[in-house]
C-alpha cells in the first residue's frame, strides 16, 4: 500500500517520467519513403543482396495496399513522406565492450533503469537496447553464446546468421500480411534476434528495450525469436519515448517460431508516450505480432500490459499448427485521457488437441476508447480444439467507451469454444468499504484496479510485475472524481 502511495505522490509531480530527450549526435536520413531510401538503409546496414530484393518487393506491395480502416480508432491521415525512416545514434566504429558506449547514451538508459552495465548482474536479465532505428547495445552476449543461445540485434543476425534469418524472416508474418507489416518489411532498421538451440532452457530473461529519441522519426523494428525442439525462453519487451507534440509512428513486427515441445513466453510492458491530457502528440503504435507453434506440444504465451501510446492497434496472435500445441494471451489495456486502443488476439486452431486461453482486461478512463477485438478459429482439422476466452471491461467515468468484438468461427464438431465478457464500473460498495477504512478514493481505485488486473499481472515475470503495477496506478492518476 505504502509503495502505491509513493508512486501516486511521485506522479503528481511528473506525469510521464520517461518524457525527456537525450541530446546525442544522431545520424539521420532525409524524410520520406522511396526506393532510394530503401537502398540507402540497405547500404547503411551493409546487408546481403537478398535483403534488398526482399525489401523492394515489400515496398512495391505496400504501395498497392490501403491503410486499414476497420479498427475502432480515429486519427488524422498519416503522411508517410513526412517521417524520418532512419535515425541512429552516432558511434565510432565497432564497440569492443560496453565501456566504449557513448556516456550520454549510457546515462539515458540509466535514467530509464535499464542495466547496460553488467554491475546489475544479479538482476540476471540480458538486454538488447534499440534507440531510434538501431540496436545500440546487447548485454550478457558471451555467457549466452556459451550455451548456444544467439541473442543479438537483427542487423548483426543478418550478417552473421543469414541462413537462419533467411529461413524464418517473414515466415510467420508474410511481408504482405497487412499494410503496416509491409511498410515494416520495406524499411525496418533493426530489432532483436534470438535463437534458442535444441534442448536449451535459456537461463535468464531476455529483454529488448525500445526507445524513440529523434524528432519526426518513426520506429520500425523487427524481432524474430526461434525456439528449437525442447527449448524454453522468456522474453521481455519495454518501450518509452520523449514527450513531443507531433504524433510518431511505431510499426513493428514480431515473429515467434516454436518447434516441437518448445515454449516461448513473450511479455510486453508498453509505455510509449500517450500524448498530453488534451490528446496532442503521442505514439501511434501499429504493431503486428504473431507466433506459430509449428511443432507438437509447443507453447506460445503472450502477456501484455498496454498503458501508453495515443493509439494502439495490435493483435498478438498464435497459429496452433502442431498437434497438442497451446496458445495463451493475457492482456491489460488501460486507456486514459484521449487514448484509443483496439487490441486483442487471434487464436487459429489447425492441429489436433490444440488449446488456447484468452484473458483480456480493459480499463477505460477519461475520454478514452478501449476495444477488445479477437478471433478464435477452429479449422476442420482441429479435432478436440479447446478455447476459453474472457474479456472484462472496467469503465471509470462516463465519457469513455469500452467495446468488445469477439469473432468465433468453428468448423469442427469436436471443438469447444467458450467466450464471456462483462462490462461494469467500480462498485460503490467496494469503494465505500475502502473509504470506511481510511483509504482515500484514489488509492482505493488503484487498489481495485490492481485486483481487477491481477489475473494477468500474475503471468508477468517478476521484474515486470512491479513496474506494471506502478504503471497502472500512474496512468489512472487524475481519472477519479
Amino acid at each position, binding site marked *: 500500500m505504502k509503495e502505491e502511495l509513493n508512486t501516486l505522490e511521485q506522479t503528481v509531480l511528473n506525469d510521464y517520467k520517461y518524457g525527456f530527450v537525450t541530446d546525442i549526435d544522431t545520424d539521420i536520413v532525409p524524410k520520406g519513403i522511396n526506393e532510394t531510401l530503401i537502398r540507402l538503409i540497405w547500404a547503411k546496414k551493409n546487408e546481403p543482396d537478398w535483403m534488398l530484393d526482399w525489401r523492394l518487393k515489400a515496398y512495391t506491395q505496400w504501395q498497392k495496399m490501403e491503410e486499414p480502416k*476497420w479498427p475502432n480508432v480515429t486519427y488524422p491521415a498519416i503522411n508517410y513522406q513526412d517521417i524520418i525512416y532512419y535515425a541512429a545514434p552516432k558511434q565510432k566504429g565497432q564497440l569492443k565492450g560496453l565501456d566504449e558506449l557513448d556516456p550520454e547514451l549510457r546515462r539515458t538508459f540509466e535514467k530509464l533503469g535499464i542495466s547496460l552495465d553488467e554491475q546489475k548482474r544479479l538482476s540476471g536479465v540480458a538486454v538488447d537496447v534499440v534507440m531510434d532505428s538501431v540496436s545500440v547495445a546487447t548485454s550478457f552476449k558471451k555467457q549466452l553464446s556459451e550455451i548456444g543461445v544467439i541473442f543479438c540485434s537483427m542487423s548483426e543476425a543478418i550478417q552473421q546468421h543469414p541462413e537462419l534469418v533467411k529461413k524464418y524472416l517473414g515466415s510467420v508474418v508474410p511481408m504482405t500480411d497487412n499494410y503496416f507489416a509491409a511498410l515494416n518489411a520495406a524499411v525496418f532498421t533493426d530489432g532483436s534476434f534470438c535463437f534458442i538451440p535444441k534442448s536449451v532452457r535459456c537461463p535468464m530473461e531476455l529483454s529488448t528495450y525500445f526507445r524513440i529519441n529523434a524528432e519526426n522519426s518513426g520506429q520500425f523494428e523487427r524481432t524474430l525469436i526461434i525456439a528449437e525442439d525442447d527449448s524454453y525462453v522468456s522474453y521481455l519487451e519495454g518501450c518509452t519515448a520523449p514527450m513531443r507534440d507531433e504524433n510518431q509512428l511505431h510499426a513493428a513486427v514480431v515473429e515467434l517460431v516454436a518447434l516441437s515441445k518448445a515454449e516461448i513466453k513473450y511479455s510486453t510492458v508498453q509505455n510509449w508516450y500517450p500524448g498530453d491530457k488534451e490528446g496532442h502528440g503521442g505514439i501511434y503504435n501499429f504493431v503486428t505480432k504473431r507466433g506459430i507453434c509449428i511443432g507438437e506440444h509447443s507453447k506460445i504465451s503472450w502477456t501484455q500490459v498496454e498503458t501508453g501510446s495515443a493509439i494502439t492497434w495490435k493483435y498478438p496472435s498464435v497459429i496452433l499448427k502442431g498437434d497438442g500445441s497451446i496458445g495463451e494471451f493475457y492482456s491489460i489495456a488501460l486507456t486514459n485521457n484521449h487514448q484509443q486502443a483496439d487490441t486483442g488476439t487471434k487464436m487459429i486452431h489447425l492441429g489436433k488437441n490444440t488449446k488456447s486461453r484468452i484473458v483480456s482486461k480493459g480499463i477505460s478512463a477519461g475520454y478514452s476508447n478501449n476495444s477488445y477485438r479477437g478471433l478464435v478459429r*477452429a479449422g*476442420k482439422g482441429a479435432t478436440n480444439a479447446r478455447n476459453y476466452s474472457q474479456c472484462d*471491461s472496467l*469503465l*471509470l*467515468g*462516463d*465519457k*469513455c*467507451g*469500452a*467495446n*468488445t*468484438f*469477439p*469473432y*468465433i*468461427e*468453428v*468448423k*469442427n*464438431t*469436436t*471443438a*469447444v*469454444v*467458450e*467466450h*464471456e*465478457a*462483462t*462490462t*461494469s*464500473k467500480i462498485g460503490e460498495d467496494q469503494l465505500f468499504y475502502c473509504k470506511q477504512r481510511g483509504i482515500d478514493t484514489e488509492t482505493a481505485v488503484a487498489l481495485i484496479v490492481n485486483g481487477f488486473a491481477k489475473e494477468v499481472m500474475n503471468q508477468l515475470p517478476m521484474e515486470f510485475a512491479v513496474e506494471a503495477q506502478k504503471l497502472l496506478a500512474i496512468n489512472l492518476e487524475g481519472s477519479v472524481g
Partner: protein
Amino acid sequence: MVDVNHFKDRFKQLQSASPDGQIARIRLKGFDTFSKTGLPAPRNEEWKYTSISGLFNDKEYHFAADDGQPVFTRSDLDAIRLPGHQGANELVFVNGWFMPMLSAIRSPDDQLTVLPLEDAAKGIYKKQIKEHLGQSSRYIKDGIHALNTSFIYGGVFIHVAKRRELQYPVYLYHLSDAREHHTLCQPRSLIYMEEGSKMQLVETFKTIGTSDSFTNQVMEIVVNNNALIEYYKIQNDAANASQVSTTHIRQIGRGYAHAVTITLNGGIIRNNMNLILEAAGNEAHLYGLYMLKGHTHADNHTLVDNREPGCLSNQLYKGIVDDNATGVFNGKIMVQPQAQKTNAYQSNKNILLSDNAGINTKPQLEIFADDVKCSHGCTVGQLDETALFYLRTRGIPIENARAMLLEAFTEDILDQVKPKLLRKHVKQLIREHLSIKK
C-alpha cells in the same frame, strides 16, 4: 453482379405510377442509397459471413409488379395456415403485396385497423406514416435494405388503438409464387402500437413452386408507453427460398417487447432484429432458435441500442447446425452515454453436429456509459458425452438419445413461445426436424 439499371427501370415505372406524397419521397431516398451502395459485399463488416450476391448471379427475378393480380386462392392458403387461425386476424401477402381479398380481420374496428400503406398515408394516420415509416434506414444503411425502401408499394399499416388488448392474435402469411419463374418479394409493413395496447403477432413464410424465391422484408414496429408486443417469426420454408428479414422495433415509450425467431429450413436466411430503446425504463427480450440442416445458411443479427437510462434487455439465441449448414450470430449491444443504469445481457449457445457445418458468432458490446451492467457469453460445443452415456446405459439407442438431448436444448426457447397452440405447433416442427416420431 447486380445490375442497378435493371432495378432503375422498375423504379421509374413505380415512381411515375404513384408519384405523390410521403412514400414516394422515402422511395426516392432509398433508391438513391441503393444505387450508391449496391448489394452488400462480404467486405462490409455487417455482411462478413453472409453473401447474398450469389443469389442474383445469372438470375432474373420477377417483380411482384409484373404479375398484377395474384394467382392464389383461399384454398392455397390452407397449406400454411397456422393452428388457431379460426380465432386470429389473418393478413396475407402474396409476392410481397398485401392482399385484402385473402385476408380476414376478426378483431373489431375500434381495436385494430389494417390499411394498405398508401391509403394510410392519405387518411387519419398520415402523421404516423410521416414520423415512423423508413426510420429503420437510420440504422441499416446497406443496399438490400435500401432496395426494399425503393419499392415500398402494396405494404400494410397496422394500428392497435389506445388501451386495447387484442383478443385475437395477428397472423401474417407471406406467400411467394415461384411456380413459373424466380420471384422477388419485398413486403413492407409499419405497425403502430398506441399507449397501453397489446398484440401478439405471428409471421410465417411459404414459397410455392420449384423456382427460387427471394424475400426482402422490412417490418417497422413502434411501441408506445405501456404497450406490449409479442412477436413470433417462424421460418420453415423450402431450400429454394432465401430471405433477408428485418424487424425494427422502436420502443418510444416505456413499453415491453418480446420477440422469438424460429429458423428451421430455407436457403440463405438473414434476420436483422433491431431493438431501439428510446425511452427510459424499457424492457425487451429477444429469443432465437436456429436448427439448420442441408445447405441452409442462417444469419441472425441483433442490435439493441440503449438510448435512455434504466433499460433492461435480455437476449438468448441457440443454434444446432448439421450437414453442410452454416449458422451465424452477430449480436450488438450499444449503450449510449446518457443511458446509465442499463442492464443488457446476451447469450449465444451453439451445437455443431457435422464437420462440414460451420458456426460463426460475434457478440459485440459498445458501451459509452459507466454505470451499466452488460455481459455476453457464447459457446460452441457438442452434446454432453456423459449425458449420452447415461441414456444409453438405460437402453436408449444413440440416435434417440441424441434427439432427446437436442430437443431438451431447444426447450428454453420453445418455452418463450407463449400462445399455447403455436407452441405445440413449433414443438411439432422441431420434433419433425429431429426426426422424432410422435
